[in-house]
């Protein structure tokens, strides 16, 4: 299973913007809280991190040097 963006539930205010911006339905609202659903279709576009007003979502990048 692919890695998913990290959600900090303590910061989330349940605004639902991430649910709307993600094209692969990685976020679902459960009551007034959001949860991340693992999916192979997340392309790490980072739109969810960009749109979250609370800074609750992070899409960290590993920085690696390609061996030649």
């Amino acid at each position, binding site marked *: 299973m692919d890695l998913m963006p990290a959600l900090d539930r303590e910061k989330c205010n349940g605004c639902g913007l991430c649910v709307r911006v993600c094209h692969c339905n990685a976020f679902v609202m459960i009551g007034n809280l959001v949860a991340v659903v693992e999916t192979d279709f997340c392309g790490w576009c980072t739109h969810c*991190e*960009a749109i979250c007003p609370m800074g609750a979502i*992070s899409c960290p*990048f*590993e*920085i690696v040097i390609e061996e030649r």
Partner: protein
Amino acid sequence: MAIDEGLLKSIPYFSGLSTAELDSIKAHIFERSIEGSGLILLEGEPADAMYFVASGVVKVFKTSSEGKEQILSFVRPGESFNDVSVFDGEPSIASAQAVKPAVLYGIRNSDLDLILRNHPQVSLNVIRVLSRQVRHLVSLVEDLSFKHVISRVAKILLEYASDGTEPKSRLTQQEMAALAGTAREMVGRSLRSLEDEGAIRLDHHRIVITNKEALREMAER
């Protein structure tokens, strides 16, 4: 938990000290555990202790009145923060927050005075550590005032790239923006330009440096 002597030895502040000296210093050190991404200090608050990172990573940053964050440094195991504020007795110059759960070793102002008085070697070490910090900050000022965002992003990628020996660092675009002193969208744009130039490849959650030389050239522009 007991203070780890091996770790103390590896801290630049305490290099060159005998075991007996380390033992006497150990008595002045307290441990503080930070859960999750907890705030450790707030800019402008009285500085009553300095800290060493024993494990984890700590982000040292300033926040502008509009809420924009500028990261000054990521502090890794063995390195210190809030020392300047403790030495000059002024309020904390920057805020500090754990990036992931962290264990810190702290020394209170009054204890630090005692340590410096009793162990002249520590004072010499401190001069070295602070000089290194000044060098880092001068290079940050240079980057922020003279370099284009794209060069700054290239430099950050080179600095944080893993060569396979250390645990890989992971940075979000938000953090890269705060390091580069710019907006998040500018980082996204810079990464795309660097990819167009063939210096990097965005591969899902990885930024792969495909042409280190080209990236270095961009960083030096």
